[in-house]
C-alpha cells in the first residue's frame, strides 16, 4: 500500500485535552488533522468534504455522536468513522457500529492503541477507495461500450450503402435505412425475420447459395436491377462471416448504388459505337474507291479514276479531322486541359480565322462583313478561342450558299463579350436546332449532302464555351440562314 497523498483525519470531540492530544500524536504520524469541538460544527466540517477517517466522541453537549455519525454516513456511506467512548457508554458505542461506525475506541487509550487503530482504519480506507476506483472504471467502460455501440449504429445508419446481415439460418440480424432504400423495401422488417419473406429474388438466391454451401464459401458480387431498365441498379457484395476457417456465423451483404455508373457506361458505349460508325464510314468509301482503282473495275483509262482519287483524298482529310475532333473532345472531357490564360483579343482571332478560310470564301464568292472591336479582350487560352471561332466561321462558310454573306458583329453586353456570326446559309429546321450540339449530329438533307463534316465541331464549341462559363445561342430559319451568338466573360 503506497501513500500517494497525505491522509486527512477529522476529530470531533468537546474535550479539549483529548482533541489536542490526538491531534499532536496523529500529526506526528504524518497525518493531516482537523478538529471540531462541537457535534454540529464537526458534522458540518465532515460533510463539507470526505475525510479518510472520522473520530467522533459519543457524548457531546449539543448533539450526540450518533447523530453526527448518521449525518456523515448519510452523506458518505463509505466513510470510516471511529467512535470515541467512555467505558460507561460502551453499549451505546457497540450500537453505533450497527449504524455504520467502523470501530469504537474506549477512553482512555494509549498512543500505541490509537496508532494501531488508525493504521487498520487506513488499510480499510485504502480497500474502499480501490474498490470505488475499480467500480468507477468498470462503469465508465460500460458507458464507453454503450456509446461505442450507438456510435457504430449511427455510422451504419448514416451510410449511403445498404447493409444487411443475416445469421446462418437466414434470419435478419442487422440492416440499415440505406438497405431498405436501395432494395426498395417498403414493408417493415423485424429482426429475426427470414430473408425469404421480403428479399429481392436475385439477392436472396445469392445469399441462399452461401447459406446452403458454407464449405465452398467465397464472396459473391451480384448486379441487381431494382427498377428496370436502369433506373436503379445496385451492386451487392455478399460475403460470409466466418469463425475460424470453417464455421459460418452468417452473411453480410453490402449494397451499392451503381445507377450513375451504369448510365455513364451506357453513354460511353453509345459514344464508342457512334465514333466507330463515323470512323468506318469514310474508310468504307475510301476502300471502295481504291478497290475500283486497283482492280481497274471500270476499265484502263486513268481519267475515269481521277475523281475517285480526289474523293478518297477528301474523305481521308475528313477522317483526320474527325480523329482530331475526337481527341479534342476527350481532352476537354478529361478535365486535364492545360490552359494558358492570357489577355486575348477576339477580333484578332476572328481576323486570323478568316485568313485561313480565304480560299473557300473566294471560291464561293461569299461577302464577309466584319464589325469588330479591338478594345474587347478576354482572359483566355488563345487556342481555345481560336478553336471556337474557327469551327463557327468554317460552318458559316461551309453551309453558306454561293454569293452568300457572313456578318460578324462584336459588342459588350454587361460583363460579357458578345460575338454574333450570321450567315445566309441553309439554316436549320426546328428539330435540328435542338440536336445541334449532340455529338455526331449533322443535319442531313439535300442541301448538306455534299458538305463534309465530323458532327463534332459544334459539340466542341459548346464544351469550350461552357468551360469559360459562357453561353451559346442559335437563331435560324431553314433555307435562309443562321446566327450563332457567343457570350464570353470579359476579364
Amino acid at each position, binding site marked *: 500500500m503506497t501513500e500517494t497523498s497525505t491522509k486527512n483525519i477529522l476529530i470531533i470531540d468537546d474535550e479539549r485535552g483529548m482533541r489536542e492530544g490526538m491531534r499532536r500524536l496523529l500529526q506526528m504520524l504524518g497525518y493531516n488533522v482537523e478538529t471540531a469541538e462541537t457535534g454540529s460544527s464537526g458534522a458540518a466540517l465532515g460533510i463539507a468534504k470526505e475525510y479518510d477517517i472520522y473520530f467522533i466522541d459519543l457524548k457531546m453537549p449539543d448533539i450526540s455522536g450518533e447523530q453526527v455519525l448518521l449525518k456523515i454516513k448519510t452523506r458518505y456511506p463509505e466513510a470510516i468513522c471511529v467512535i470515541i467512548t467512555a467505558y460507561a457508554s460502551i453499549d451505546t458505542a457497540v450500537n453505533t457500529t450497527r449504524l455504520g461506525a467502523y470501530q469504537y475506541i474506549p477512553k482512555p487509550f494509549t498512543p500505541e492503541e490509537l496508532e494501531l487503530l488508525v493504521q487498520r482504519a487506513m488499510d480499510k480506507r485504502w480497500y474502499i477507495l480501490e474498490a470505488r476506483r475499480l467500480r468507477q472504471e468498470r462503469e465508465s467502460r460500460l458507458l464507453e461500450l454503450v456509446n461505442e455501440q450507438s456510435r457504430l449504429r449511427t455510422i451504419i445508419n448514416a451510410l449511403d450503402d445498404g447493409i444487411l446481415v443475416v445469421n446462418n439460418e437466414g434470419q435478419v440480424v442487422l440492416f440499415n435505412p440505406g438497405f431498405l432504400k436501395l432494395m426498395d423495401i417498403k414493408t417493415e422488417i423485424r429482426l429475426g425475420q427470414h430473408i425469404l419473406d421480403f428479399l429481392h429474388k436475385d439477392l436472396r438466391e445469392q445469399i441462399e447459395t452461401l447459406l446452403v454451401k458454407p464449405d465452398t464459401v467465397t464472396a459473391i458480387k451480384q448486379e441487381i436491377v431494382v427498377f428496370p431498365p436502369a433506373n436503379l441498379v445496385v451492386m451487392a457484395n455478399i460475403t460470409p462471416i466466418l469463425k475460424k476457417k470453417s464455421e459460418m456465423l452468417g452473411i453480410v451483404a453490402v449494397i451499392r448504388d451503381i445507377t450513375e455508373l451504369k448510365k455513364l457506361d451506357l453513354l460511353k458505349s453509345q459514344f*464508342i*459505337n*457512334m465514333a*466507330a*460508325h463515323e470512323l*468506318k*464510314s469514310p*474508310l*468504307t*468509301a475510301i*476502300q*471502295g*474507291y481504291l*478497290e*475500283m482503282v486497283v*482492280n481497274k*473495275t*471500270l476499265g484502263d483509262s486513268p481519267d475515269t479514276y481521277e*475523281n*475517285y482519287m480526289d*474523293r478518297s483524298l477528301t*474523305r481521308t482529310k475528313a477522317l483526320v479531322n474527325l480523329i482530331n475532333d475526337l481527341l479534342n473532345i476527350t481532352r476537354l472531357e478529361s478535365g486535364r486541359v492545360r490552359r494558358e490564360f492570357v489577355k486575348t483579343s477576339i477580333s484578332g482571332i476572328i481576323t486570323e480565322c478568316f485568313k485561313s478560310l480565304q480560299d473557300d470564301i473566294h471560291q464561293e464568292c461569299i461577302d464577309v462583313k466584319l464589325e469588330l472591336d479591338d478594345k474587347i479582350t478576354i482572359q483566355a487560352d488563345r487556342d481555345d478561342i481560336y478553336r471556337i471561332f474557327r469551327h463557327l466561321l468554317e460552318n458559316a462558310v461551309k453551309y453558306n450558299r454561293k454569293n452568300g454573306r457572313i456578318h460578324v458583329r462584336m459588342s459588350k453586353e454587361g460583363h460579357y463579350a458578345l460575338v454574333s456570326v450570321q450567315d445566309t446559309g441553309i439554316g436549320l429546321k426546328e428539330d435540328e436546332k435542338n440536336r445541334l450540339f449532340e455529338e455526331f449530329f449533322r443535319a*442531313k*438533307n*439535300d442541301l448538306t*449532302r*455534299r458538305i463534309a463534316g465530323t458532327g463534332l465541331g459544334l459539340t466542341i464549341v459548346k464544351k469550350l464555351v461552357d468551360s469559360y462559363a459562357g453561353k451559346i445561342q442559335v437563331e435560324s430559319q431553314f433555307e435562309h440562314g443562321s446566327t450563332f451568338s457567343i457570350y464570353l466573360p470579359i476579364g
Partner: protein
Amino acid sequence: MGKKILLVDDDTDMLDIYKPVLEKAGYNVKVAYSGTEGLQVFQEFGPDAVFVDLSMEHFDSGFVLCHKIKQLPAGADIPVIIMTAAGHETGIRFSTQTSEEKNWIKADDYLEKPIAVHDLVQYLDDKIFRDK
C-alpha cells in the same frame, strides 16, 4: 435491259462507287439519298432489289424505309438488303434487334460495310437473282 437496282445511301461516295460497278455488270441502277426519297424513287422506278443504308436522316432510317417498301403491294416480294457500317461489333442496333423488330422490318438480308465492289456484284448474282 438488266435487272433494276435501287441504292439508297446518304453517303454520296458509296453511291458513286456502287452505281458504276453495278451498271458495268449489266444492272439498271437508280439512287436515292434518304429514306423519304428512297420510297419515292422505289414507287417510280419499281426496282427488282433494293440496297438501303441503315443510318441516314435518322439512325434507323433504313429500317423504316424497308418496312414501308414491304408494306407496298409492289414491294412485298422485292428483296431489301440493309447495309451499315455499324456492324455487330459497333452494335448500334443490328445486334440488339428483337424478333418483333425483325418482323416489323422484314429485311431480306443484312450486310456489313465495307462491302468490296466485286463482292456486291457477286452477291446479287449468287444470292438475289440466282433463280431468276
